[in-house]
């Protein structure tokens, strides 16, 4: 009995920690959704692009870890700058659908650029953190939990707290929330939309880089990261597209639920249900709570 409980705990904690990685990717989507009301389909490509560049800097040019990270982050700021100048500004008056299509195009451009610059082979990324159970926890709590999962959880927590503070207490954060509510009114009182867009795309780029590093360390830096990032879609449907806490909780729920279902119900379906189970959960949410757990309800005064 106690063994079964421990096993369940292990599945749960492993799932929750893996879920923080989904949260990280979803966070990138939320940032851009808040500012431009667009689902950024190029977020997956940004993950791939940024972490491949990071690997390239480290492995092809022998740049040390910290410097390579800073360079990759700066590169994502440049990507944000170019996106604002070349894609978003010309489409300023276009419909949201047009911008959505543009992000799909942007995704292909980034995927192509990344592979043209750094090659197509799978790269191994060693962060110096093993993907194996931490001995101390295994000995004392009898739980087998990967060090990489714990690191990912911590990193995600730090980034989330940082972003929360940025939005709540800084001037540019206030500007971002204003733009998210009513871009026209924000512009009428002199909040420059282009600065906000630049901020949001750069922040989303850096979040993509961090998420890519975590995923890459586990599964290798490869093209499949682009599709893996789409796992953020059910996370967002559950959490709500415009909510940062929603992205976090949604990620945790998806991570935990898919692991638990895989272990306990998977065998009845012949296994490998974690690939589609989150989408089934998302459909239930769309039917019964379409704004998600934390999504901003459309406030209507009566």
């Amino acid at each position: 009995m106690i063994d079964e409980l421990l096993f369940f705990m292990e599945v749960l904690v492993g799932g929750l920690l893996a879920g923080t990685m989904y949260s990280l990717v979803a966070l990138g989507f939320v940032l851009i959704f808040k500012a431009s009301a667009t689902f950024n389909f190029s977020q997956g490509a940004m993950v791939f692009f940024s972490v491949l560049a990071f690997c390239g800097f480290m492995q092809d040019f022998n740049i040390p870890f910290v410097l390579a990270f800073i360079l990759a982050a700066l590169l994502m700021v440049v990507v944000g700058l170019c996106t604002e100048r070349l894609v978003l500004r010309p489409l300023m008056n276009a419909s949201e659908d047009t911008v959505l299509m543009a992000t799909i195009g942007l995704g292909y451009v980034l995927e192509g650029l990344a592979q043209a610059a750094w090659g197509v082979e799978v790269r191994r990324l060693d962060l110096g953190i093993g993907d194996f159970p931490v001995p101390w926890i295994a000995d004392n709590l009898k739980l087998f939990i990967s060090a990489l999962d714990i690191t990912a959880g911590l990193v995600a927590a730090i980034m989330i707290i940082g972003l929360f503070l940025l939005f709540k207490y800084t001037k540019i954060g206030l500007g971002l929330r204003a733009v998210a509510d009513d871009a026209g009114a924000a512009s009428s009182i002199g909040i420059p939309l282009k600065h906000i867009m630049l901020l949001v795309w750069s922040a989303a780029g850096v979040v993509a880089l961090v998420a890519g590093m975590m995923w890459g360390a586990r599964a290798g830096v490869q093209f499949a990261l682009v599709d893996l990032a789409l796992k953020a879609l059910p996370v967002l449907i559950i959490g709500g597209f415009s909510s940062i806490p929603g992205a976090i909780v949604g990620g945790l729920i998806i991570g935990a639920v898919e692991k638990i279902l895989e272990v306990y119900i998977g065998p009845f379906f012949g296994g490998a249900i974690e690939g589609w189970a989150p989408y089934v959960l998302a459909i239930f949410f769309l039917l019964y709570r379409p704004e998600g757990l934390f999504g901003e309800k459309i406030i209507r005064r009566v």
Partner: protein
Amino acid sequence: MSNNSADILDIKNIEVTYDDVILALHDVSLKVPKGKVVALLGANGAGKSTTLKAVSTMLASERGKVTKGSIDYDGNSIQKQNPSQMVGLGMVQVLEGRRCFGHLTVEENIISGAYSRKLSKGDIDQELEKIYGYFLRLKERRKSQAAFTSGGEQQMIAVARAMMAKPKMLLLDEPTMGLAPQLVAEIFNIVKELNQKEGVSILLAEQNTNIALKNSDYGYIIETGKVMLEGTAESLLNNDKVKELYLGISKKGRKNFRDVLKEESLNTKSN
């Protein structure tokens, strides 16, 4: 470069088109003297909002363009400016329909108006106190989410937010739309007070002709994108045509200006 002439805003014969085809303004000229309140009156679709947006340069984001004529603000052409530069120069528009940031608190809404200024935390608090002096109601509700405040309070938020940018000139687009008479009076009292105590020049677009003229120095009446009549507020209030067409003091049904002019020309011909 600052301007010595008496007018803070000088619009000369502007024509505005949307999407390169839809002609919204044919020929509008108007002036706002420094420190005065000028009313821009007319029915729905007459071109009031378009005129204001041409001045604040917000037309561009609605695919509109000034195709003829010129607009000078404080002695300089506004042709090459964008909305945030205009705010920097002291020209702020309060958009039609209040447009508060619904998920932000009342106070955050007001503070967001100071975005274009470089203020310390202490300066912002000081400015806030000053603004709350005009909008006592908002001080009580400072922590509420703006979306849950009443229509009148939202209008006050919008004006207070604009005042945080320290404007020399305010463009108010139908501030009394959909408000109860008591609130209309309250809003106009505040606007008057801001004009007198802060020296803000005001261009006010309104459908509510009577109360707008009673609170203005000068008025323009536009119809289908053209200025049909102008004059001091007093002269407009006493003008028979205005009385008949806009103040509802008439024995016959409602008409518009064009019909009256047509009638007049017919009368003179037959005489």
